[in-house]
Every structure is written in C-alpha cells, then in structure tokens.
C-alpha cells in the first residue's frame, strides 16, 4: 500500500476514507445495472420483444412465442457436392447424407390459429453433421421480409397489437407504421396477392437473411438460400378444416417422401447483405446444393422438434452470419422464447401454466 499523504489529514478526516470503500463497489453495481439493461429502460431487449409477442397473441405455455402452430418432420439432406467449392461445411461434401429434424409452422403466437389465417408458411431445419456440428435454419414462404431491423420489427409488432375493444389491430396504427416504414413496400406488394397455400409440401421457403459461405482458402462468399419444392402446387383450394396443413402433410407422407432442392444464391459485389427487405437481382449465380428428403411427421407436442431452438446463428464451420442486423436479434429473441417455453414444460416456479384461459381447445 502507498504511504498516506499526510497521516494527520487522515486522522482528522478518517471518515473520508470510507468514501471509496462504499463508492467503488457502488460504481461497479451501477455499471452492471446499465450493462444488464435494468438501468437502460429504453434499450430494445429480447425480453421486451418476447413480451410484445405475448401482448399480441397471449401466453400459451409450452409453445413457441412466434410460429407457435406447427408439426415436426424428419428426414435427411443429400448433398450434390456443388456447394463444396464455396463452403467447407461437412453437410456439402459430395455424396454426404446428413440427418435432419425439422418443423413446419405458420407465423403468429397463437397455437390454435386456423391454417388459412395467414398466407405464410415456414420450414425450420436442424442438420446434424457427422462431426457433431449443426446447421440450424428457419425459412419463410415469402421472397422478402417486411422490415430490416429489430427496432422496426418491434414497432411492427406494437402496431399489430390487438385493440382490447375490438380484439383486432387498430388499422390507424398499422397504417401509421407502414407510412413510417417504406421498406415494407416489397413485402406488402407480395402479400396483396399471396393466398394461404393448401400444403406445406408445395411451398418454397426463403432463408431471407444473408449468410457467408467460407471455402477451403478461407474466402468468404455472401449467400442467401431457398428450399425449392419439387412437388408442384395443384391449385387445390384448402378444405374447410382449421388444421388442414397437418392433415395434408400426413396424407402425402403416407404415400412417400417429400423433396425440396436447396438453392444457394451467390451475391454480386454490392448486393445488400444487411437488408432482408431487398431481394437480390434474379440473374445472380445459383447453385443446387442438394436435396432435402422428408420422410416422417410427428405432432409438435411430443415430436423431436419440440425442444429445438431453430436459432439461425447455430452454424457449422464453413457457414457464418453476415452483417444482417436481424440475425443477432433472432438469436437473442429465440433464446428468450426457448427459455420461457422450456421453463413452462419443466413446470418451474414462476413459469406460466396451462389454464382454461390459455388453452381453449385443450389439445393435450
């Protein structure tokens, strides 16, 4: 310890020496409170995002806070080898077959929503490589995302919160949101003509966010990907059954496996990698990286997809996230949703529990 400057001064102001003993730990506590967001009430946190999902759709214990209604599927991915020049990921090795556990769903936080309530379907996949690394991805059946940033996504959720008086979103708030967010134009143009499809099997699913493939030289290639359905849509109108997608999927899989082609698009220099509202021009180089083969389906309440968090930042060596700001936001928000639903499944104290209110159809 250094010598006191003046022991006399210290004798007289002994209490002054207590100041740092109290102030230094207090300063650490304040800094910690700020870093943890408790003292920064305006920061957009994963918790706030997930609370907003709950405000919009209610709390349905055990279910995902978004894309709540869905079914598990399983099968494998057969690599064509064509992506191997761009990514060292084992899943792309020529001839490699990688087991897949997936999930089809519709967006929204209500696990009982009728399948015809939205024109969007989703496909989530977890590829488990032989080396133990995993590739997780969640894709939607639309060519662009409405917004580019988590802040805009949050604003969209807020604008869509049902008005307690009508049980429906306030059209004025939605209009104000869209007016303030012109980047939603491409999505809205698509949504105007989009119809709820009759089958998960005939839809194609876009990854929407950009990623990077890393090749054996360490060179990075900006990419987006899409699962292109091999089954053609037959124009059938959806039957009058709120759960027709599940019924259709079972019927089709009973007849044989379903297939999609994984199409990877390579960006040209200058193509936006940080903006999921903007599609890349149609003339970009594409690679057919292989075939997804789905063979079986199970209910999400008991199937293997239930306890998987399809966090799109869980990636094998050879695939990396881009500078797209939606990706870290998705990772953080999915983790919070996952913790809530697994806590509910485990019946931990403080976790929401099923009640007459939250589980009207008593499906379980």
């Amino acid at each position, binding site marked *: *310890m250094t010598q006191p400057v003046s022991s006399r001064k210290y004798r007289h102001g002994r209490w002054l020496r207590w100041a740092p003993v109290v102030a230094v730990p207090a300063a650490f506590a304040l800094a910690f409170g700020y870093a943890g967001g408790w003292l920064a009430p305006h920061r957009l946190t994963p*918790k706030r995002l997930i609370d907003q999902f709950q405000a919009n759709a209610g709390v349905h214990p055990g279910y995902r806070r978004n894309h709540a209604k869905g079914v598990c599927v399983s099968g494998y991915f057969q690599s064509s080898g064509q992506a191997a020049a761009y990514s060292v990921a084992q899943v792309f090795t020529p001839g490699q077959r990688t087991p897949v556990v997936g999930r089809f769903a519709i967006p929204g936080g209500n696990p009982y929503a009728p399948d015809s309530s939205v024109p969007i379907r989703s496909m989530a996949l977890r590829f488990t490589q032989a080396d133990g690394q995993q590739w997780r991805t969640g894709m939607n059946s639309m060519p662009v995302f409405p917004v580019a940033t988590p802040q805009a996504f949050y604003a969209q959720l807020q604008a869509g919160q049902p008005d307690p008086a009508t049980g429906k979103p306030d059209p004025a708030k939605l209009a104000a949101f869209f007016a303030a967010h012109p980047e939603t134009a491409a999505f809205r143009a698509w949504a105007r003509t989009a119809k709820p499809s009759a089958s998960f099997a005939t839809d194609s699913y876009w990854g929407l966010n950009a990623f990077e493939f890393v090749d054996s030289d360490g060179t990075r290639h900006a990419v987006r990907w899409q699962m292109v359905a091999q089954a053609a849509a037959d124009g059938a109108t959806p039957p009058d059954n709120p759960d027709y997608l599940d019924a259709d999927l079972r019927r089709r899989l009973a007849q044989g496996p379903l297939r999609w082609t994984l199409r990877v698009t390579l960006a040209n220099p200058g193509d936006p990698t940080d903006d999921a509202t903007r599609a890349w021009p149609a003339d970009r180089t594409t690679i057919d990286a292989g075939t997804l083969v789905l063979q079986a389906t199970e209910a999400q309440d008991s199937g293997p997809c239930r306890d998987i968090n399809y966090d799109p930042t869980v990636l094998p060596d050879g695939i990396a996230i881009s500078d797209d700001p939606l990706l870290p936001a998705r990772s953080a928000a999915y983790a919070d949703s996952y913790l809530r639903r*697994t806590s509910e499944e485990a019946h931990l104290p403080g976790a929401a529990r099923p009640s007459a209110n939250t589980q009207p159809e008593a499906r379980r």
Partner: protein
Amino acid sequence: MKTTPGMFALPARILHWLMAALILAMLFIGVGMVASVSERHAWLLRIHKPLGIAILLLAVVRLAVRLRHPPPPLPADLPAPQKLAAHASHWLLYALMIAMPLVGWAMLSAGGYPVMLSESLRLPPIVPASATAFAILRHLHGWLAMLLFLTFLAHLGAALYHGLIRRDGVLASMLGGTRKS
C-alpha cells in the same frame, strides 16, 4: 501495530489479478449480451464461451498453485466473524468460478446445442439433452452469476476496507507492492 501478513506467492497474485479481470469481464459480457438484440449479442457470445472455458482451466491451475503455496494468514487481530466471512467468501468465489463455466457448458448440452468454442472447435456434451435440465441450468447460470457479482462487490469492499481503513497489509499481500502500509 498490526501484524504484517506474508505475501501471496507470485503465481497466486498473477492468477488472482488476471482472473479478476476475466471473471469481471465475463459477468459484464453475460448480462450485456442477454439484454441486447444488436450485433453485440453475436460477438459477445462468441467471446463468452471460450473465455468461460479458459476460466475453468485457470481455476484448476489456481487451486493447484494454492495447494503448493498456502495463502498467508489473515491478521491475528482480525475479529473472528470477519475472518470467517473472509474464508467463506473466498471459498464461495472459488466454487463459483468453477461452477459457472460448468453450468454454462451443461446448459448448452442439455439444450441440445453444439458447444462451439470457435468456428470449428466443439466440446462434447456433458449432460444428455433435456428441456427440463436446460431450463433449470439456464436459470441457475443466471442466479449464480448474480451471486458471484454480489460476492465480488462484498470482496471488493472488504479489500478496500483492509487497504484504506484497517491498513493491515491484506491488500498489499495481494497487490505485491510494499509490504508495510
């Protein structure tokens, strides 16, 4: 007037200050990343996992160093309750610096996540995949982190109390500066 305790051995002092910086950084990284939806979330998480495992390895080395070089005794005139608090909090700090990384590793294992320390380095799972185990371990990781931070605050306050109020050489024994204060 007060007994000057001996010094902590040099390796013990180096490990103490290095790990103090790392553990404190980990606490801030941890609460910062789970409260953020920005790019920070991604890059902080990329640091968090390998750094946490590094702390686990350093803690093992540190305990070995402690066995070889027992710490100097606390001042003889320190009241018994304070001695007890000092020893109990030190053991709590050791327990937490080992438990935190193990719980982090176990919770990712239970969640069915690959435990990636870099783009290609993967640790094997240490518990089987289970949603219930994940939820419990994930909450435990958060609560133990809060306990670690509170213990650190008390430890910091106590160190300053020894250095500024009692001036009994305890802080000096870890700083490695002059022996007498």
